[in-house]
């Protein structure tokens, strides 16, 4: 009479992605916003291609982070509209499936965004990821996963808080610092070359962060939803 954790996680992931596919509203907004950020940075930094190229990794991740923060706020909106989380909580089975499903949904949407954004950034900022492409992809995925792990967690926590639009970025930022540093530096090294082979350290940092926070957030999640 009870679904497995994997099935419930899949169900929530499927539902969220299907809703997003149907409405398309937030994904197109995300793409436009991210492109806007990249353009603005391009204008702010100036047309010198050497500078742009050097800063490219950082600028790309700023665009991803800001866009990600916007889309996180909506993670639980579809539940509010459907009558609150009670509906999901009423089903038997591990309640962490809600967190896992939403986490994977956020992750997937961000990855799709990146697939669109990276070529745009490559053009605007003169980036060349082709040289060490697997490394570049790996770092991007690790960073995106870390972002999704804490982002989904804090999105759930702040869902019922007043001034949610303020609190989510405020709470998220301190936890985001290691991911951001890891992703930016790792990306820059992957793009520009890594004579001293420093990228290993960043990769280890990202992996540790992802594992530690994944475990902590998954473990502590039921307490967030208690009443």
């Amino acid at each position, binding site marked *: 009479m009870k679904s497995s954790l994997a099935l419930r996680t899949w169900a929530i992931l499927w539902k969220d992605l299907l809703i997003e596919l149907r409405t398309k509203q937030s994904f197109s907004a995300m793409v436009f916003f991210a492109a806007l950020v990249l353009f603005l940075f391009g204008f702010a930094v100036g047309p010198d291609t050497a500078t742009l190229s050097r800063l490219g990794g950082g600028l790309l991740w700023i665009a991803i982070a800001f866009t990600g923060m916007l889309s996180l706020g909506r993670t639980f909106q579809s539940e509010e509209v459907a009558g609150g989380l009670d509906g999901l909580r009423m089903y038997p089975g591990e309640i962490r499936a809600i967190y896992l499903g939403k986490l994977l949904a956020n992750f997937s949407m961000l990855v799709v965004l990146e697939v669109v954004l990276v070529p745009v950034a490559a053009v605007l900022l003169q980036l060349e990821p082709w040289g060490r492409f697997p490394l570049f992809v790996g770092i991007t995925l690790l960073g995106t996963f870390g972002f999704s792990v804490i982002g989904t*967690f804090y999105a759930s926590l702040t869902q019922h808080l007043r001034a949610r639009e303020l609190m989510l970025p405020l*709470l998220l930022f301190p936890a985001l610092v290691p991911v951001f540093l890891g992703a930016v530096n790792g990306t820059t090294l992957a793009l520009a070359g890594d004579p001293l082979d420093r990228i290993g350290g960043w990769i280890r940092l990202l992996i540790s962060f992802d594992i530690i926070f994944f475990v902590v957030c998954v473990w502590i999640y039921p*307490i967030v939803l208690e009443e």
Partner: protein
Amino acid sequence: MFLVPADALQGDVQRLMYVHVPAAWLAMLSFFVVFVMSVLYLIQRDPKWDLVAVSAAEVGIVFTALTLVLGSLWGKPTWGVWWTWDPRLTTTAIMLMIYVGYLLVRSFADDPEKRARWSAIIGIVGFVDVPIVYLSVLWWRTLHQPPSSPRSMAGEFVYVLLLNLAAFTLLYVYLMLRRYRLAIAERHVEELRLTRDDGRIT
């Protein structure tokens, strides 16, 4: 701070260290207290742990701000810059943000149980975050060859530092006790104010 003769190399500014270091130490201690209290609260659900936690957060945020301001004031004449992205200083600034987040969440939650529970979660996740932040900033800085902050001190200076540390720790404990008593009183007021309308509460 006023007993010690001016440091040979850095002059009077060095005296700031006698406050900066204890303040930093107590700020971190307070953060640890918030963490422990958060865990205790989530396990036992006893409101008193939550009250200790908020006391530690408020006292801690004061010491953290003090640490940052003094660090900045010390940095300007010493290194010529107000801010250096030094790993310890940067991590302290981020710790301040976590404290602020903790207190803001409390101010935005009306239900005392939710307030205690959510801030406990932030206290725990925040505490897990700080070492990772420190390591990541440290790694970042080692790639860019930073100036290192001087840590060694001559004998008599250490003695004064420890004296200051003891004095500040006593101050900390005193402030914590006062804040805790205030927190208990606040809770009573809250309880009375919100149940006064309903005469049937026994």
